[in-house]
């Protein structure tokens, strides 16, 4: 059985808009990936726990609330606590340009802002997997 890329798609924080996350999830599925979609209002613990149980290759976060600088470090910390620091984290949403290097410094693999072509997300994940 050929190995499939497994991606966890989660929306941490309290904003209730998951259209973007769903569009990306569909694009990843159409690119042949297995997307575990966890939906809205996920806490960092919920996200890391799901990533562990599902043994995902990549974790994707969609954040529109502006809380990325507080949420992302907590997700990274929870992943590290579960010995999953090697799992690339990608973040999409409304992220000011100034914050992108900050997030990358924290250990985020890639940040996608508004208007990103979904194919760029697919390509980035494939690259992260060495494909």
């Amino acid at each position, binding site marked *: *059985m050929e190995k499939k890329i*497994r991606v966890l798609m989660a929306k941490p924080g309290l904003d209730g808009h998951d259209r973007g996350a769903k569009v990306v999830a569909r694009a990843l599925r159409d690119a*042949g990936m*297995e997307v575990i979609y966890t939906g809205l209002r996920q*806490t960092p613990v919920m996200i890391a726990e799901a990533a562990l149980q599902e043994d995902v290759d990549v974790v994707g976060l969609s954040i529109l609330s502006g809380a990325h600088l507080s949420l992302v470090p907590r997700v990274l910390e929870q992943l590290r606590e579960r010995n*999953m620091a090697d799992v690339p984290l990608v973040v999409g949403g409304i992220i000011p340009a100034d914050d992108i290097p900050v997030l990358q410094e924290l250990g985020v693999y890639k940040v996608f802002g508004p208007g990103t072509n979904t194919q760029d997300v697919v390509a980035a994940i494939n690259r992260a997997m060495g494909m």
Partner: protein
Amino acid sequence: MDIAAAALAGDRRALSRLLSGVENDTVVGRAALAQLFPQTGKAHVVGITGAPGAGKSTLVNQLAREIRERGQKLAIVAVDPTSPYSGGALLGDRLRMRDLSTDTGVFMRSMASRGHAGGIARATRDVVSVLDAVGYPLILVETVGAGQSQVEVARVAHTVVLVEAPGMGDDIQALKAGLMEIADIIVVNKADKPEARQTVRALQSVRPGMRSEGHHRVSVGKEKQVAAEVAGWEVPILQTSALENRGLEELLAALEAHRDFLKESGQWRARLQENARAEVESWLQRHLLALLADEVGEASLTAVVDTVRRRENNPASAAQELLAAILAAAGGAR
């Protein structure tokens, strides 16, 4: 420590990786499965099946919560369909199981069907085996929203719960073979809806027939029906409602009653026997296909298939000739 030993020792990351290895049929996964197999056969495996939209995920979530309130650990394996076009999948069962997502007493794993048509994935059985071996006493297997012929879950589970939603079918539907025949427990979900009573009545009217016919286990992929008269077990028809949070205690009691019934009647052993046979047959098939690829090769296979296309040979004879070729090659190698 190897991955199987780490998983046995309670390392959940190792367990999760091992499940991937088994799902992808890697060398490590296969070896670990062989290593763990002697420790399987302890868990009560419960299949949850039914049409899409019947409320399987929600019911599983609530059932799991009820079980956790009693302090028991459990594992959940939820299968969703793989897209036949892209090979990808959207696995959404966690959406309805968020109550459980931070409870480390629950291990939940989503699986894509990966082209397997029986309502579960090919590797679901193996994933269940690993979860069983590492000590989860109860494993819930939620199928792809299954149609009437997707009965393979009966080959993996000891107890099959068929989830029906009100207004989705009449008693003619209920009389049809397939899902109804593998049900050990029938649940009419969304019982808060007024049509629920009608659905229960329709199901009750066909239930005696199910019992007297007595066929219980359907042999997957074959015409014959195997074993197990359902003597002494009356398939209960229960009502549950997520909205009104009702019926879960009864369902849990029915699961336990069915498990006790299987053990006391000797059918637990009979089901283990059937499941063991199904597993051996499934591996035999895979080994044979691997032999076909290795010993006969794609080119020769295509040549034989071409003769069938041209109607110079028929499929049954062609398969027989290929089998003869495999046996000859395997014999020559020895």
